[in-house]
């Protein structure tokens, strides 16, 4: 799916686990072994993506881990747009895209996925706790 949506390689040497509501976490086999021995486990590994039907919505960390291999469905932001993105504000696309989700780049940094709407804007999927305050 990652290949299809973003042209990106898989996390071949790590372990992907599904953690409810289509959420995908990335971890290591050692981490799973240790978790099996512990009590009161709340979570393990890193939340990297959410499956929405046939779509893969990468989290900020998911996009950062795949940063170097994402080849399609991405947009480049200016510094001002990057701030707006992290504030959770929509970004107007320069040209139309058929993709439902795109990954945002600012310089070499990946800022996660945004949902493309019919009005040609991208709505960043930045969780509220990650948003920066408007200056």
């Amino acid at each position: 799916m990652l290949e299809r949506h973003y042209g990106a390689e898989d996390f071949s040497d790590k372990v992907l686990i599904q953690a409810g509501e289509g959420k995908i976490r990335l971890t290591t086999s050692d981490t799973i072994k240790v978790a099996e021995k512990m009590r009161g486990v709340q979570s393990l590994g890193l939340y990297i993506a959410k499956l929405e039907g046939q779509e893969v919505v990468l989290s900020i960390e998911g996009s950062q881990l795949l940063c170097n291999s994402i080849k399609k469905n991405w947009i480049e932001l200016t510094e001002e747009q990057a701030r707006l993105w992290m504030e959770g504000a929509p970004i107007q696309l320069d040209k139309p895209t058929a993709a439902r989700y795109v990954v945002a780049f600012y310089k070499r940094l990946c800022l996660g996925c945004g949902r493309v709407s019919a009005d040609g804007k991208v709505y960043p999927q930045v969780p509220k706790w990650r948003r920066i305050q408007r200056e």
Partner: protein
Amino acid sequence: MSTIKISEDLRNLLYSLPEVDVESLLESYQKPIRQSIRVNTLKAREEDVLNILREKGVELEKIPWTRYGYWVINDINLSNMLEHMLGLIYIQGAVSMAPVEVLSPKPGEFILDLCAAPGSKTTQIAQALQGEGVIVANDVNVKRIRALSSNVQRCGVINCVITQADGRKFPLWAKGFFDKVLVDAPCTSLGIVSKDWGAAKNWSFRASERLSKLQLSLAISGFDCLKVGGVMIYATCTLSPQENEWVIDRLITIRPSACLKSIKLEGLKMSKGILEWQHNKFNPELEQCVRVYPYEHEAEGFFMAKIVKEGDDS
């Protein structure tokens, strides 16, 4: 400018501590702690992050005792910066980076952070492990676990298990399991009063004594979770010997295989552990513990003890 109020008990405590410059300490309580950051190399190369920050006008100065720590010289709201929210930097007190430096985690090790929230030291450990090995980050408080989870996520840690459990019960399922353990115990916070003046106003011997019993239980629990040959760091951000030297004195008495080791960190001004306080005479080995006072670096005050498990007591 308002003046800090300190309780009668705290005044008595401070004047009972040998070698403490009480005037400087009270003065330091009235000043904000110097801002500092850790560059998170799990997300980007150190040099790249430093360049990004410098381009944005952030003036930095290396902290000598910690590998990726920097003082922030100018007055900047780091918590609202893109780099903070993306996890390239972690805002962390300069002295609070010291316990993990002393723990010295290595890739491949299994490490327990027994009182982990909000996750500053957990994410610092993760950085040292470089994705190899495992950290178990535990806390008893569900609200604090939310902050811990957010910080572990923001820093891009893949090899962490977050647990919610009473740290005192950990040996029931993890006895002798870990290479290293960090017990950054809950305390009366006399090392970070400048962040919360209430800690000085409300401080009491009674509360300190009550907490010390919990701290001892946590220290014993953490120690029992170590493999033979494993290393534990016990740390607090308080100055009371009841919560520091007393706890370690009791630990090495109850667990004879617990052996104190000396602590060396370049550039960090440290005082030796106290051997006599009020009616207490502690084991002379406790001189190997260290105290860092808030006025030494315009940073937090800390107590640290490095303990090696040299055999199996049970």
